[in-house]
């Protein structure tokens, strides 16, 4: 090996751990590991996927959750991010949530996705200009509205919330690594070549404004409302094949995915996967807006999601479908 190579290896020596950087001894580390392995899971497996979706919205994963739909694939295996310069001249396409497309997925497909081992793979380099932080609690709804002036739509008639928080603003950009994205699809059994070659190196940006998060003890009700996230992408970016890949990724057959992806407006539609063994969905109207009502099969929990005036609203709790609708419609 040549001298230049040896110089590089010598240069890397600066990264060696110093004395104070040594890890805890292996025995102690293994004891810590055992402790972690025997801790109960923070989120029991029995929580339906769609409820996890809404739960995500109360955490810093909101951006990913919100973005998940349209270029939902960008959520599912593109692990999406975004940029504050959403309308910079090099970006010609723009996505905002305007409608929802619930799709049924089989329990097997869901289990496969959950059990899939992506080995820490990321479909590109994600750079956050502003990383979405966990929502911060505030004292009153007035304070929340002052901090998130574009987010508030309404509050159900449940009295003072037990908790109010504001957060979720963020922006960043994902530069797509096509080889990595294809590898992730391939692991899921989907043909990675569905992704077009010119996707490689594309910058896909997302920006979210702060949202308002509320929780009431009654019915363990939670509500999230925030301006629709915006996703911008290069003008030559064709969302249709990516949408098809997303649908196949979620367990649809190729024929079904082709048919549905051709009928969806991927520039404004958020896909909501609903596992058929756990829940059912129906289209309803909330305050004059088309909405999706998802009800757990045992009837114990319902979720509503709709868009109004550029805002996405999600309401969920231990209510029957009729009760939740009544709550939402006031």
């Amino acid at each position: 090996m040549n001298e230049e190579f040896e110089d590089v290896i010598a240069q890397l020596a600066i990264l060696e751990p110093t004395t104070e950087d040594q890890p805890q001894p292996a025995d102690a580390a293994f004891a810590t590991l055992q402790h972690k392995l025997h801790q109960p899971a923070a989120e029991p497996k029995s929580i339906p996927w769609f409820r996890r979706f809404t739960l995500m919205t109360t955490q810093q994963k909101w951006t990913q959750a919100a973005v998940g739909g349209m270029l939902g694939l960008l959520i599912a295996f593109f692990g999406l991010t975004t940029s504050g310069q959403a309308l910079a001249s090099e970006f010609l396409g723009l996505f905002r949530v305007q409608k929802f497309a619930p799709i049924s997925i089989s329990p097997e497909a869901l289990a496969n996705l959950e059990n899939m081992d992506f080995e820490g793979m990321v479909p590109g380099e994600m750079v956050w200009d502003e990383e979405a932080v966990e929502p911060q609690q505030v004292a009153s709804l007035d304070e929340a509205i002052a901090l998130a002036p574009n987010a508030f739509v309404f509050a159900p008639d449940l009295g003072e919330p037990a908790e109010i928080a504001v957060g979720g603003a963020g922006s960043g950009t994902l530069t797509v690594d096509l080889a990595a994205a294809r590898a992730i699809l391939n692991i899921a059994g989907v043909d990675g070549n569905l992704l077009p070659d010119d996707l490689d190196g594309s910058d896909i940006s997302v920006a979210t404004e702060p949202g308002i998060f509320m929780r009431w003890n009654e019915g363990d009700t939670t509500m999230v409302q925030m301006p629709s996230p915006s996703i911008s992408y290069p003008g030559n970016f064709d969302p249709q094949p990516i949408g098809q890949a997303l649908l196949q990724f979620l367990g649809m057959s190729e024929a079904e995915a082709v048919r549905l992806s051709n009928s969806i407006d991927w520039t404004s539609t958020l896909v909501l996967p609903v596992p058929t063994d756990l829940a059912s969905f129906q289209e309803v109207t909330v305050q004059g807006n088309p909405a999706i009502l998802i009800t757990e099969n045992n009837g114990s929990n319902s979720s509503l999601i709709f868009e109004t005036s550029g805002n996405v609203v999600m309401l969920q709790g231990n209510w029957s479908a009729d009760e939740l609708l009544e709550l939402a419609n006031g």
Partner: protein
Amino acid sequence: MTITIHDQLSNGSAGDESDGQLLSRMHQGDSVSFEALFHRHYQRLYGLVFRLVGNRAEAEDIVQDVFIRLHQKPPSDGRNEHNVSAWLYRVATNTAYNAIRSRNRLWQRNQHLVPDKRDSSAGPEKAAEQEEEAQLVRAALAELTPMHGQLLLLRQLGLSYTELAEICDVNPNSVGKTLSRAADAFRKAYLRLSVHADAEGNNP
């Protein structure tokens, strides 16, 4: 007589087995094999991850996560089934790369906030220079593919070509060539970042 896990590890009854054999026994629910794999790879995985993330607590957490994943979903038949070390190092490298890339921007913004800790006996100025250099080297590594970064760091850790071929899943005959390409990519990234850092230093 009772034989404990530690006895088995120290007297070699687990230590003599290959990674693949330990993995097979893990699949059958043998916890001793998992512990043997942990002890066999812990220190070196930590060394690799620390070099990438530069932070003890974070490196320890990442290594723990890697073993949690190994415990929960050990690599199964069909995909490098018996090359456990390749799996471990790949997962660790990918996870560390995710960590450094996602916070790269933050680091750049807050460089001045990073406490100096390297060889502080050499004086604060020297320590600051070393820290800056370490961050530059790390940033250059972050621009490589994870496989190139992993190869370079494992070579720096002292692994032989044979070991590198096994761990990085590279053809033994092409290790040298791949290392050379990785070094070239590193030099270019480092040079570019150095020029950029100098320009920023001259134009605060």
